[in-house]
């Protein structure tokens, strides 16, 4: 084999570990008859831990690309790999505790989860438009199946039909945009696309074609990050999918989408203007389009969330709004903006997964996602109520919880870039958001008759579930205690391979 490829394999261990685990889970699922739930769970868990351990030493590797420019390796990609593996690991732990998933053939769920994880790792580090498209399709196709995992339930099936149709059209449009960009620049490598554009490939009459290509490519990224106007699938899919899948979709593919978007637009459509400062290319002013998308996304997400009574649907709109905030960090085009995106994603991971864990746990007991059925939960389970309240306060952005710091960094990056109006829009949006998050807290603590709630019986939480809730709760409530660590991690991770 080619020595170059053999050498590159050393930086590809996380992906290899996940591939091997995926195959092992399939085999174990077929080979074991009685123990297969435990066996597949253990293999998948160990595989993800191994992949995470293999990811850590990659931080120190020199920046560059692997496999002839297909996959980039830089601190940013490694950060996202670790982030995505960690998210998948949490979902792996949460899935067997969910009544929806546990009834089904759970080995297949683990296989699909590992498949999406593999696709996301590639998506977060794709440096070639071929790899970008393949990874995007790998994530999308597998998540369509995950959404329709409860194949005998109408809601789950309907969600997967809608997800598939929106996804196929969005990624198809993105592919068409990529072909136009390929035609303009004659190359598929994202960094070479930039060089060609700087030399004037998209100037003059080709400007329109470049604009069309950019908008079409944004359709694909918009679909993955659930940004308006490509968000229509999001509330329906989040409501219909099994809750662990919803929790997964609201964090991991969204983060991978942002990683790919940042890599594509920073290395492909921006020019370097000093250390950690970039500027949009003269040929296409993509920051303007992204700011527009971002403002509409956060506003629509927050306003639509106001009138939701189904908790999963409310969290769907809330995740749309959060994507709008994260976009704010991407358009700033400097190191501070990149860092704010990473900080926001870290805080979002814990608070959002935490909120979904509580939703899963409460559904296990009462079989409903309706906010009305959460009335008086304070009397039935103080632990779940307090945990949920803290996650909601963090999602609102109330100090001293984690969510506040994410918003602080993102808004700070916008203000420093003289986009004060943009930060003001974001801040006004977070004020609107307080209403629907506070409504959950009010329903759980104040509403409902205490006698009625006590008569319905106390809710006992299994030790596995409460441990997992604690794992989310501690970073959400106490991230500021080890803030210098987060600062250090995100500062060293915001470096992007530019060549």
């Amino acid at each position, binding site marked *: 084999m080619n020595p170059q490829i053999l050498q590159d394999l050393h930086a590809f261990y996380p992906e290899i570990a996940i591939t091997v685990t995926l195959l092992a889970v399939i085999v174990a699922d077929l080979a074991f008859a009685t123990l297969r739930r435990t066996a597949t769970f253990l293999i998948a868990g160990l595989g993800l831990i191994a992949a995470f351990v293999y990811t850590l030493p990659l931080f120190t590797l020199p920046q560059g690309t692997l496999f002839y420019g297909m996959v980039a390796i830089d601190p940013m990609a490694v950060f996202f790999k670790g982030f995505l593996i960690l998210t998948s690991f949490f979902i792996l732990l949460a899935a067997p505790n969910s009544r929806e998933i546990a009834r089904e053939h759970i080995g297949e769920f683990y296989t699909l989860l590992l498949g999406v994880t593999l696709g996301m790792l590639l998506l977060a580090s794709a440096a070639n438009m*071929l790899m970008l498209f393949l990874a995007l399709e790998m994530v999308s196709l597998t998540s369509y199946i995950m959404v329709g995992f409860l194949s005998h339930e109408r809601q789950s*099936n*309907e969600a997967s039909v809608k997800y598939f149709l929106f996804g196929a059209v969005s990624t198809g449009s993105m592919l068409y945009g990529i072909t136009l960009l390929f035609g303009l620049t004659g190359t598929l490598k994202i960094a070479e696309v930039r060089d060609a554009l700087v030399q004037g490939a998209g100037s003059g009459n080709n400007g329109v074609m470049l604009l069309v290509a950019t908008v079409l490519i944004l359709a694909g990224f918009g679909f993955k990050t659930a940004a308006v106007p490509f968000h229509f699938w999001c509330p329906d899919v989040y409501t219909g999918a099994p809750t662990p899948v919803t929790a997964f979709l609201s964090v991991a593919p969204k983060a991978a989408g942002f990683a790919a978007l940042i890599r594509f637009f920073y290395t492909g459509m921006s020019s370097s203007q000093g250390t950690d400062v970039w500027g949009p290319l003269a040929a296409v002013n993509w920051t303007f389009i992204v700011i527009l998308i971002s403002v509409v996304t956060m506003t629509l997400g927050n306003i639509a969330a106001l009138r939701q009574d189904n908790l999963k*649907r409310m969290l769907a709109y809330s995740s749309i709004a959060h994507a709008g905030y994260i976009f704010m960090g991407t358009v700033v085009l400097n190191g501070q903006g990149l860092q704010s995106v990473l900080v926001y994603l870290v805080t979002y991971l814990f608070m959002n997964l935490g909120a979904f864990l509580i939703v899963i746990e409460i559904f296990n007991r009462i079989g409903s996602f309706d906010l009305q059925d959460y009335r008086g939960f304070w009397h039935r389970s103080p632990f779940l109520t307090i945990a949920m309240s803290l996650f909601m306060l963090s999602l609102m952005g109330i100090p001293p919880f984690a969510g506040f710091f994410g918003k602080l960094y993102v808004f700070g990056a916008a203000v420093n870039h003289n986009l004060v109006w943009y930060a003001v829009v974001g801040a006004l949006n977070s004020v609107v958001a307080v209403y629907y998050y506070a409504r959950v807290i009010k329903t759980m603590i104040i509403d409902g008759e205490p006698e009625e709630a006590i008569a319905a019986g106390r809710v006992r939480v299994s030790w596995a579930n409460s441990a997992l809730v604690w794992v989310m709760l501690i970073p959400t409530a106490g991230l500021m205690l080890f803030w210098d660590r987060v600062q250090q991690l995100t500062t060293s991770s915001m470096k992007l391979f530019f060549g």
Partner: protein
Amino acid sequence: MIGLPHYLIISAALFSLGIMAVLTRKNAVNVLMGIELILNSANINLVAFSRFSSANLDGQLYAVFVIVIAAAEAAVGLAIVLSMYRLLKSVSLDKADMLKG
């Protein structure tokens, strides 16, 4: 002489027809056919650009990958539509109306 513009016009027409099929058809299988049109219009672009304006075979290589992806997408799409038919005894997208609001 057939040149690059001819191919681009055909592919743009196919892309538009695909989008139109997706937007107007109520039958899920027809929508799947529209999606195939979109992917294949991109293939025509790739091969044409590769032939006329690029020095290497990147575009044609990409087209081969897209064909494989299109097959995978059709397989997943048909499986989902089949399971929809099992549940609803219909492949009409109007019947998928449980989730809204």
